């Protein structure tokens, strides 16, 4: 199991489009992926699950992966979060 804590940096937080990008990236890996915020843990391949985390900017989330490519998955997802979900226009509708 690989685990890493990352902080949400983009202005809109983990909004719908950000969640969709996270899920898209996560779905490329065979490992099971979970995302935790506080004591809540959600499936990292579920958009609706991630939306329920309601994580604004500055929140720390923990990415947990378990499987054959867990290290690569955690690395890719942590980078995506650190890059602000590759948002081009911060402030645009979510």
């Amino acid at each position, binding site marked *: 199991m690989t685990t890493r804590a990352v902080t949400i940096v983009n202005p*809109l937080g*983990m909004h*719908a489009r950000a969640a969709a990008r996270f899920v898209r990236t996560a779905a490329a890996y065979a490992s099971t992926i979970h995302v935790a915020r506080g004591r*809540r843990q959600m499936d990292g391949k579920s958009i609706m699950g991630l939306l*329920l985390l*309601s994580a604004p*900017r500055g*929140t720390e989330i923990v990415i947990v992966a378990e499987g054959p490519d867990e290290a690569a998955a955690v690395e890719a997802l942590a980078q995506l979060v650190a890059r602000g979900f590759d948002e081009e226009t911060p402030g645009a509708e*979510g």
Partner: protein
Amino acid sequence: MAYTPSLTIGALLARGSGFAGLELRLVAGEHGLERRVLHPAIQKTGLSLAGMADFVHAGRVLIFGDSEVQYLSSLPPSARRRTLDAIFQHDVPCVLVTNGLEPPAELLDAGQASNVPILLTSATTAAAITKITALLDDRLAPREVVHGVLLDILGLGTLIVGDSGIGKSECALDLVVSGHRLVADDAVEVRRRAESVLIGSCPELTRHHMEIRGIGLINIRDMFGVASTRRSKRVEFVVQLERWDPGHDYERLGLDDAFYELLGVAIPMVRMPVAPGRNLAVLVEVAARNQLLRVRGQHAARALVARADRRILDAEAGPLHEDDEDDEQDLER
């Protein structure tokens, strides 16, 4: 490919009464029946009789009503023919004399000489214009034959497109069995009316029929009853079936609108990946129901995302534990 048809005067004579109840009678210029109407708008002859013949548009039906007949009669006989010949220099497909008026002899002579058919109708000028415009609008509409299946799903004209063999017909058959109505299978004739309205129908030969691999040609109306098919339907929604491509990002949120371009009209579209275990007919019906809601202003994706955004803003502003309690309640529900 899209094409804009034209209509010969011969075909107009044959179609006129059938389409709009416009009785047409040919009285001169019978050698000009191959002339073609190119534009659905008619032209009132009006001032072109007074020497403004340059304003006669080629390819438009020329309407000759009371004022035209009276004006022509007021001219000296020598001027009548000269005036008409000047008008017929332009490519006039035919002249329609309305209101049951007696056509002036010069008009018949000029039509005969220039091979411009002269038609009579007993309809009033206003009624004749309305009817012939409707007929021409229908016959001259830009049209295109689309490879796909057109169905009426809960009142929404839904066009299913996709590569051959992807299962369009099988999906449509599923939908027909569920009580939705078939318009056309395989080849859908689409014509554009009033600039932005697309009407789909089935070529007469294959109407009510489908081809199902393993069974062959079947007659849907005979098999499922008169309510299982309909002759034409406005095309309002497109579902594009696609082979599942693991590398492609399919729509997950439904926030972004996609459109399918047909005859210059953009129709709302969803791209539906096809894979084993996905019940296509149910998916297409759900997409159609979702579209019906969107047309009525109920956009589920936008509404949910707006609530999620608000939740994030609240979480940012307020203490974390309150938000957590709120969420716990939410999850238990």
